[in-house]
């Protein structure tokens, strides 16, 4: 049986003696044949649609305004997006959502992971329980929180009223800014297990003797956290940040279920705006241009992380 590495080696060899041996050439074509299905899939499912979408974004493809005329309009769609107040509103909202999500969730996730890393009775059960929210589909989570936030019969108002924290039922999803924060809380509940599991995995790789040494040197609990634990968690933190930034930047499903972008457009994040433009208003040209701008935005963030990671490595 030929291992993938053999194929690579064979290809290398074939390259150095190009065309000299029929057998070698055969191996090379075999390599090509083996790659073709994957290439086709990647091309068909990713590259072609992206190129085609880019093509659409350069045209006026607005089914409602003119369905048969799709003139080439260059970068006009992009210019319209960048000039749109809706775009900037939803961008700032998305940025707020992303930054606050990351900060809150990282702190909470780390705190829970630190607790679960300690020895205590029932630790296994608690570790399993913490995973439950992660196992729920986002749609179910959205419906769940919709009921929790329900003004008249919701659990949140019920709890806070009984505790005497509030004197009358609150409209949790009635005010734009508050609704955005409530969506953030619902999302946090759902994704926290991801942070916990990732941090926990990293925590378990920290050798115990480092803590012992630090303790002998007189480091306090806080000192051990800052000087031993956190430096070891840094690579994992970066991975979490990369993945979660990309996720929160494109947050859509929980908003679709919980608020539909309301009230007063308060939870209309950038992905929801793109969905509205494309699928509800049928302006595909504008919608694809918008999606490309979102794509470039996420790419820029990803590249930023690559930079940070590089300096990490140099250090």
């Amino acid at each position, binding site marked *: 049986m030929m291992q993938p590495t053999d194929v690579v080696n064979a290809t290398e060899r074939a390259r150095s003696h190009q065309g000299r041996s029929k057998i070698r050439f055969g191996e090379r074509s075999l390599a090509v044949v083996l790659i073709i299905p994957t290439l086709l899939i990647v091309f068909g499912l*990713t590259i*072609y*649609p*992206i190129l*085609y*979408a880019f093509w*659409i974004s350069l045209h006026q*493809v607005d*089914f*409602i305004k003119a*369905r*048969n005329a799709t003139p080439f309009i260059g970068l006009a769609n992009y210019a319209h997006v960048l000039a749109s107040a809706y775009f900037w509103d939803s961008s700032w909202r998305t940025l707020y959502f992303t930054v606050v999500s990351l900060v809150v969730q990282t702190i909470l996730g780390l705190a829970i992971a630190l607790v679960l890393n300690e020895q205590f009775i029932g630790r296994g059960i608690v570790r399993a329980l913490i995973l439950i929210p992660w196992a729920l589909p986002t749609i179910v989570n959205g419906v769940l929180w919709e009921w929790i*936030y*329900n*003004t*008249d*019969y919701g659990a949140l108002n019920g709890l806070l009223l009984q505790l005497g924290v509030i004197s009358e039922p609150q*409209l*949790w*999803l*009635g*005010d*734009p800014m508050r609704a955005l924060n409530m969506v953030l809380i619902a999302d946090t509940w759902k994704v926290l297990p991801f942070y916990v599991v990732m941090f926990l995995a990293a925590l378990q*790789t*920290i050798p115990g003797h480092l803590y012992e040494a630090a303790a002998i040197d007189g480091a306090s609990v806080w000192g051990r956290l800052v000087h031993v634990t956190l430096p*070891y968690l840094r*690579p*994992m933190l970066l*991975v979490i940040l*990369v*993945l979660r930034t*990309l996720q929160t*930047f*494109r947050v859509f499903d929980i908003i679709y279920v919980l608020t*539909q972008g*309301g*009230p*007063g*457009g308060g939870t209309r994040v950038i*992905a929801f705006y*793109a969905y509205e433009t*494309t*699928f*509800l*208003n*049928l302006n*595909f040209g504008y*919608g*694809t241009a918008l*999606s*490309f701008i979102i*794509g470039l935005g*996420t*790419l820029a963030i*990803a590249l930023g*992380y*690559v930079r940070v*990671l590089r300096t*990490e*490595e140099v250090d």
Partner: protein
Amino acid sequence: MPADVFAPSTRRSLLRAALVGLGAVSLPVLQACGQASPPSPSAATPKSSTAQSTAKPTNVATSGAATTPAAATPAAGAKPAGRGGAKITLIGSSDSRPWFEYVGKQYHDATGGSLQLITQAYDQTHNKIVTAIAGGSSVDVVTVDTIWGAEFADAGFLTPIDQRLTKEITASLVPHALDPWSYKGHQWAVPVSYYFKFYYYNTEILQKGGISAPPKTYEDLVDVSKQLIDKKLVKYGQSWGWTQAEGLICDWQQLMLAFGGNWWDKSGQWSFNQGGAVQALDYMVSNLKSKVFDPASSTLTDRTTMNVFARGDTAFMTNWGFAWSAVNDTKQSKVAGKVKLTINPGTKVAKVVSTSCGGGGGFGITPNSKAKDDAWTVVGLITSITKPENDLPKLKMIGAPPVHEAMWHDPKVLQEEPQFAEMIKQAPYMRHRPVLPWYTDFSKIVQIELTKAFSGEKAPQKALDDAVAAVKAKGNPPTG
């Protein structure tokens, strides 16, 4: 050593994986768009011979049979002799699936053809239709909500059916039944149900409060509500479904028209920031604030607002016909058997008797359909337009109120649905929402500004001024 756990290469490859992931996941909208291409004008009447030749071989028996009556007998092939119904593909909401299956059998028995169903939750239906038709899938019949008619017509998703609607059919329908799909001088779809909003009231609460009849005007509604709240019979007078969603527009139109406002004036200019319209929004906002209306209304939909009424926390509710069975279901309602119906209130200030917003759905035929005659047969059966006997089973199976005027007065129907006698009284006061191809955009703008008034971010006049300005920038009111 911990360094091994996250060696640079691992980190890099993880990041690379993340970046590849970015390519794949950050552009779901793009990929979906990638499938979309504007339907070519030649789709309806194929100009290119290649288009015809590629389409023909697979459909020669069916499409030939369907479009040319002469071919019906010889081309039938595997199908029962003498018949030759085509395979018709339909996109509709999954709520109605049992009804589609019932009609599928009728269609098969009548023609030998088959009905293939593509159903999904109502909320996904619009997108499903858009992506299917724009992507070139062969679909014959699609469901068309009242607010999608103009949009689908302009987008080229529907083919006019004026020729197929006889005068007898049109005359047998309830008032305004065809309005939502009449656009640019053509009829694009026909109604499957006849929905509008009615006024529900809790007889027990009214009786306890010594109120003899439900309020006839919105001014009275406030007075009556305050009495009932003071007597601790209800939490609020009425709860509404005013969250930022389509349901808000229905209620807003109902109240705006009741207060003498209108979407546009006689000169064809948007005018819903003037006169009665502003009074209506003032009325809505101030009564939410004073808790005559459930303050949570701004977070409820027309469905979730039913919970408040069904628990007996309010005395009144404006809602669609489907609420009737829901609030009378002892399993999910505390007020079952205590609910009555009447027409929506009007106002003293504008001397309006009543107003109501129309809804419901319809069915139309796509231009790409290769068997339009068979597609019409299916549409006729589903909507019961061509088969009035279908009105009753449709009502029983999916609760769709009949589209034929006579059925509303039919003793057989009234025996099963006695509330119809009250419901039909609302019909003369019913009006549909604006028939605009960019309705979704229009509706969203108005929804957002109205909710900004509810949350206190803007004063009612300012919110409506902003809504009118934004709508004006997008286009004009429908003409004619």
